[in-house]
């Protein structure tokens, strides 16, 4: 089960994801991120992965696509709260160097 919540913090949109991000749920997550990016056009999009237990390659693909679409609106994408398991996946795919990654949500919001 995937639980997604979005909220506004000033100019920033925060998307909090909870659960397992795999092929079965990417459509749901893609819609939320697309809606957030197109309707709010945030200067900063923060995706909080604190409660994500697992992310597979389709989930990573989604995040890469999210970064690209935020880039196009000259916004920024910050990820935060990567649990060890997720961090490992990011390290292995070198995405740690592709995304701006922060420890806490506060840091991610301040890092704008």
């Amino acid at each position, binding site marked *: 089960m995937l639980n997604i919540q979005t909220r506004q913090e000033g100019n920033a949109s925060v998307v909090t994801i909870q659960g*397992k991000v*795999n*092929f079965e749920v*990417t459509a749901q997550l*893609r819609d939320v991120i697309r809606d957030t990016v197109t309707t709010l056009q945030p200067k900063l999009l923060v995706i909080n992965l604190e409660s994500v*237990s*697992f992310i*597979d*390659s*389709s989930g*990573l*693909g*989604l995040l*890469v*696509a999210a970064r*690209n*679409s935020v880039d196009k609106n000259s916004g920024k994408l910050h990820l935060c709260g990567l649990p060890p*398991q997720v961090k490992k996946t990011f*390290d*292995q*795919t*070198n*995405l740690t*160097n*592709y995304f701006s990654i922060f420890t806490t949500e506060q840091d991610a919001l301040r890092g704008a």
Partner: protein
Amino acid sequence: MHKGVVLVVDDEAPIRDILSFYLKRAGYQVLLAEHGRMALEEMGRLLPDLILSDLRMPEMAGDELCQAVKGDPRTRDIFFVLVSAMDGLASKIGGLNLGADDMISKPFHAQEVMAKVESAFRLISMRKEIKRQNLELTRFQDRMTAELALAARLQMGLLPGIPGLAAGLSYTHRYLPAEGIGGDIYTIVPLPDHSVAFMIADVSGHGVTAALISAMVKTFFESQLRFGGGPLAWAQGMNRDLARSTLAEQFATAFLARLDPVQGTIRYVCAGHPAPLLIHQGAAGGRNHISILGGKGFMLGIDETLPFGEQTCGFEKGDRLVFYTDGLVEVEREDRQLLGEEGLLEICADLPGDREQAADLIIEQAIAFNHPAPFTDDVTLVLLDRV
């Protein structure tokens, strides 16, 4: 064009006449029968959509007719309304238990009967629509299943034949796609200088799209080989090709290597792919030292400007390489444990020398670890020995 066919079964001519009159006026085609047996004969000529049948009749009564109609697969979908002089709940329940779809009690108002007929036809047309859609779906599904099976056979044909031999290397694989066809691919190509080009890749997602892209990945790799060069140049070229030809979310993890049995070296690029294991003197089996051919690299196809790095390691006679895709080690169990690289290292710490047995053992142990969770992603395992 009539609205449907109604068969009126009653031994009293005035009732047949009045129902027939109203039904025809409302636009239905009407068939008439005096009793059950005659009704069955009539149905031999034309199947009605709805039967309005009296209960008490000579020759064959309404309950018997109802059982005959509902017991025959050719007629059981005909809407059956039993008309009975016996009023009361018990008789209604009895009639419905016989399989009748509805009951009308005698004496009746023609308007009541017509209202029931109209409502029955609404149900009938819904049933017909559902049946039609079901048939369409079943046909569609059959066609898709057949096409997927064909595509799966084709995809299997893209993999190297096993057991395989190339320039002093022997190899085998296990390929388990999650949905009949998958996004994993690997290939081994002997090069003119007696070295061997190797690629294993895992396209994001699975199913048809991933399978299509995996075939592209193989083609991109092979076209890079024609330019000569080494893993770094191949990775850069493939990254560019993939970034230009796939959608935003589609890319591949890959491990590209040039295995040189003469020099005893491996040059490789690890592009976001699980690091292969090098079991020193592993071809003989038993407990051996294992190296991890790691390296941090981006996945292919994200962005054509991203950099890659090439690495080199030794590759001695008797060494065994274990290549795999993440589906093998990334099954999340109920307790959130994954086999992971650590688990695979444990399994590989003591493998039989026989490649086929070793491959089977790795798959079996991974399944045993994940139990009862099944593999959910495509799984590819390649064992390659320098003999």
